[in-house]
């Protein structure tokens, strides 16, 4: 069935809640309203208030309560309405969700999923366009997933709902309704920690995730038209990260461009670039290029287009690297 990402995630939540009655959904406006992006539409009618909870308006309260639920036998899917607001709950995620397994040597675990729309360039209000993956990838003990397609969104969320550790599930809101693709009705899982090679190529490796994979694909098409053979990798799982697939590809191509919409400094591109330098230095034909958001606060809608990497900037990055 053709679905866009909102439908795919919604479909997954329905299926998973039917499969496992310990799963519940909680957050602001997720129940009666079906979520501000309609991701949880219909769940309230089907599963009721006990399992689809419109919570008080407190991100820290949502994640804190979810953490307690998870440790004592439930499997909550907590929604943070926009990633820009997650930092009220960051304390719980960093200080406890990420550490509880370790500090109890495996006796207490936090099998919960925290879903949140991220990404920008959709003319949203301030604090609604963040791409804050780095602060979460930085924390040992958290799993960080970021799908770039409806198919991957459903399969990754299904895996997240069987994971034994806390999962941060970043949904690129820019892609929520950007395109539809075939998504199987039946349940399937996409393994956590495994990147997807979208296209094989020999001149250059392009690494991205989430909304930037969609934009990068367009740039890659152009590059191919210009005679550059690009191997395109969509990470899907940011932590754990499938560095092996990146290394294998770079060994073959000798060139790499990393694209992300988060700011450049200490963005995940820095880590990927460092890892390539550590392992593949003698294979490199050019420096690893990062095409990213600038090191500034994301501008208001009138000028936000200057901030986000677009097809043109990505294509320039590819050409610059190939022609180095």
């Amino acid at each position, binding site marked *: 069935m053709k679905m866009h990402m909102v439908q795919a995630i919604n479909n997954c939540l329905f299926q998973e809640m039917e499969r496992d009655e310990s799963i519940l959904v909680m957050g602001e406006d997720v129940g009666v309203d079906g979520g501000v992006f309609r991701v949880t539409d219909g769940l309230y009618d089907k599963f009721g208030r006990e399992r689809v*909870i419109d919570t008080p308006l407190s991100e820290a309260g949502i994640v*804190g*309560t979810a*953490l*307690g639920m998870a*440790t004592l036998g439930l499997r909550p899917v907590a929604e943070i309405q926009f990633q820009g607001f997650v930092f009220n709950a960051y304390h719980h995620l960093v200080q406890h969700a990420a550490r509880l397994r*370790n500090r109890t040597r*495996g006796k207490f675990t936090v099998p919960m999923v925290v879903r949140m729309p991220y990404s920008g360039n959709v003319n949203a209000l301030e604090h609604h366009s963040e791409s804050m993956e780095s602060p979460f990838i930085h924390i040992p003990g958290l799993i960080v997933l970021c799908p770039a397609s409806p198919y991957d969104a459903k399969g990754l969320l299904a895996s997240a709902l069987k994971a*034994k550790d806390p999962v941060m599930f970043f949904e690129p809101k820019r892609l929520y309704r950007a395109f539809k693709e075939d998504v199987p009705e039946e349940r399937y899982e996409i393994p956590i920690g495994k990147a997807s090679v979208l296209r094989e190529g020999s001149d250059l490796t392009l690494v991205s995730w989430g909304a930037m994979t969609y934009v990068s694909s367009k740039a890659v098409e152009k590059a191919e038209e210009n005679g550059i053979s690009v191997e395109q990798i969509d990470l899907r799982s940011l932590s*754990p990260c499938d560095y092996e697939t990146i290394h294998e590809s770079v060994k073959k191509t000798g060139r790499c461009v990393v694209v992300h919409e988060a700011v450049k400094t200490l963005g995940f591109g820095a880590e990927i670039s460092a890892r390539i330098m550590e392992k593949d230095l003698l294979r490199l034909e050019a420096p690893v290029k990062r095409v990213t958001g600038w090191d500034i606060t994301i501008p208001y809608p009138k000028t936000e287009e200057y901030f986000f990497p677009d097809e043109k900037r990505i294509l320039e990055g590819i050409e610059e690297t190939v022609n180095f």
Partner: protein
Amino acid sequence: MPVKKVFEGSVDYIQILDKNGKVDEELEPDISKDVLDKLYRHMVTARTWDKKCLALQRTGRMYTYAPLVGQEATIIGTGMAADKTDWIFPSYRESYLYHMRGIPLSQINISWMGWEKGLQIDPEYRTFPYAIPIGTQLPYATGGAYSMKMKGEKSAVISFGGDGSTSEGEFHDALNFAGVLETPNVFIISNNHYAISVPRKWQTKSETLAQKALAYGLKGIQADGNDVLAVYRLVKESARRAREENKPTVLELVTYRMGMHTTSDDPKKYRSEEEVEYWKKRDPIDRFRIYLENKGIWSEDYEKEVNEGAKQKVEDAVKEAEEFKGDPKEMFNHVLADMTKNLEEQKKEAFKK
């Protein structure tokens, strides 16, 4: 339009055993001799253990420690009142509770001696690992209570926080969510009058901490936290109310931290000797001893036997804990359920010969 009163509320203060050991017979709970004996033994053991821990820290045999002296009634009263099927979410000040829940005393020492292994506690004991940040356990207790309710387990979730914790956002979140979600919680506030050096009066202008419960639609009760009979009775009643009616309660237990916050601070800097003397006269163990004597349980011989037993127990626990030796390599093993390739490589690098 006439002015209408839209809210009225009040908070009761309860004391059953006064500072001189005189009991209010109307409020006196019916406690078996066996339980009275256990209450006393645990209070004495807790104090003996606490003293030992302080000595261990002062001689470099243990790391930073948060003494419990003065707060025995809040800890032991709760530990005895809770059912085995209830959950307890302690703060670091109540670590003795793990022992009351069936975990060897030596394991708690192992935790304070710097090994993660100390908190490797099986969930079957229904005691949540204590947290070092202030008040974070409170919303977890609310979520945990929601789990108990959803799973149809008739279990109360009893959490601890100090007077300082009531200033944290977590306190608000926990009570607010508990009210809305109607969870089986008992939120104990151990008001020991100090958050490190900051006195209770500088935490909030609120006259009592218990009254904060009313704003969330919960019941709030204040009690003498150095009166183990009051603690026992109120925790029993609140836990029953939680289990059977899904009604959360806030219990402010007014006590006093006789020692320092942790072994890293000196209370002389921020409080007077007169104040400490005032609270010494309200000691939880002294008054309970008089009560037990009147009940025909306490005698000089009994005291001797209880003290010797406690001392032996503590010495054995410390000996066992000091013999413990963990495996440093374990630090890589529990980051996630499944070890990543990245961590495998780092582990190898960290422990290469």
